[in-house]
């Protein structure tokens, strides 16, 4: 079963990130790299992507002529998607377990961030007989 694990970061979190020490930043990156490596080795890794800072993000809608109309990030947005991890696991519990590991990635002073991770199951393209 495939799951997408999404890390949302509050707007304030992005600001705070700039104030992290070099050592803390390095420790956090190493943690994430190591997590991806562990998941590759366990045969569960499908994909992962870290997203750029939301400052430059745009919201796009199609105009009447189908051309894109872009808008800046809305100031009322409280949190942004920081990145996602996609895994293929045997059970839902295993997906939660991985989410908890990621959630505890180290922050300032090496303390766990305990960030909320949204866990969503992917849809399959297969189907069984239905009545």
């Amino acid at each position: 079963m495939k799951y997408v694990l999404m890390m949302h970061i509050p707007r304030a979190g992005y600001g705070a990130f700039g104030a992290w020490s070099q050592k803390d930043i390095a420790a956090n990156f190493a943690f994430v790299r190591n997590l991806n490596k562990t998941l590759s080795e366990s045969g569960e890794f499908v994909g992962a992507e870290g997203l750029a800072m939301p400052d430059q993000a745009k919201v796009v809608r199609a105009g009447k002529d189908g051309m894109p109309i872009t808008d800046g990030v809305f100031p009322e947005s409280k949190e942004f998607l920081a990145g996602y991890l996609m895994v293929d696991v045997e059970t839902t519990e295993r997906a939660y377990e991985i989410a908890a590991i990621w959630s505890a990635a180290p922050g300032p002073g090496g303390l766990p961030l305990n960030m909320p991770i949204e866990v969503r199951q992917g849809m399959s393209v297969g189907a069984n007989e239905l009545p």
Partner: protein
Amino acid sequence: MIETLPNAFDEHLLRELAPQVLGAIVRRFRDFAAAEDAVQEALIAAFIQWPRNGVPENPRGWLIQVASRRMTDQVRSEIARRERETSVARDAETMVFADEIEPDMDMDPNDTLILLFMCCHPALSSSSAIALTLRAVGGLTTAEIANAFLVPEATMAQRISRAKQSIKASRVPFSLLPPEDRAERLPAVLHVLYLIFNEGYASSIGAHLQRLNLAREAIRLTRCAKNLLPDDAEVAGLLALMLLTDARRAARTGPDEGLIPLDKQDRSLWDRAEISEGIEFLTAALSKGSVGPYQLQAAIAAVHDEAARAEDTDWPQILALYELLKRVSPSPMVTLSHAIATAMVHGPSKGLELLKPLDSDDRLAEHHRLNAVRAHLLEMVGDHETAVRHYRIAASRTTSIPERNYLMAQAARLEESPNCPEEKTTTP
């Protein structure tokens, strides 16, 4: 790799030979993990060379020879490494491998069976057992298996490699299990084959057709298992079930790629050859006496397949078979199907009554199938409003895109014309 092949013959031949070659190499070198790698390399060499140079006169011998050379090279480099590291004199026990081997000295049809039982080891997770079986017994490449399960090749390679390590760690000897142990392990083997089939069949929807047909691979492997265990009725039952289900493949998807339920399928699209072969195997299996769950499921599939039109379906017969299945192999899914059969024989209210206990069954209470069946039966009794609600709940709970689309369409159809049911009575 597959696309570069000029014809499918080589591919099939290679897949037939893969487990035999692997069996011969494991028996000679006694290292499953290394042998498996060596055989994959030999298969890849054949993929490249045979279409160009022609199939060798003794293809199996050719593969054994190439894989053995690879093993010998590995052993040599391992010895060299150990010598460098420990400067211990060459171990007297270390064999000297001849470059040229007699290719036909190892031919044992049981090798394939040993491999199958090894790969479907109960210590492995089902995804690992499936991957390893497809590779070691099925002769598929890691890339093909990764593609079929839509995961990166590196991930699948790791999954296979870990499975091989687990087998190595469990110190399973490479030999045929005694009959009593084999009987005990057989359900796990059949379950893995069934899962491979189901994965392939479920994915056989319109544009999402897998490049590698896992249902066909499962049928091939089960056919092979049946040849090796000719007296086992459940192996034959499983093969019959696969054939009788796969026969409907072409009819289960519409031009818009929507799911078509059994009672709406164009039965002229069903594969008659597969149906008669399935019925033949089933009949032979049933005459053996011990009737297991795969034979019963195959028998149910056969009753559906034998009806020329949906309304000709022998529902009393199906109901009787589900009653047997409930006794032999009870599960909430069987109870669900039993409720449908009951509704078809004794009316939808009787079917709905049978669904009630399932609401308190943890395995099914929040499963979309329970809502889908309930919606269907509610529609049959004429409670369209509640039926719509259950179709919608089912749609929100399924994790399959075609199922969700189908269930949403059912809800919309019923809501738009509540007094105008489908052209004919629906049957599951």
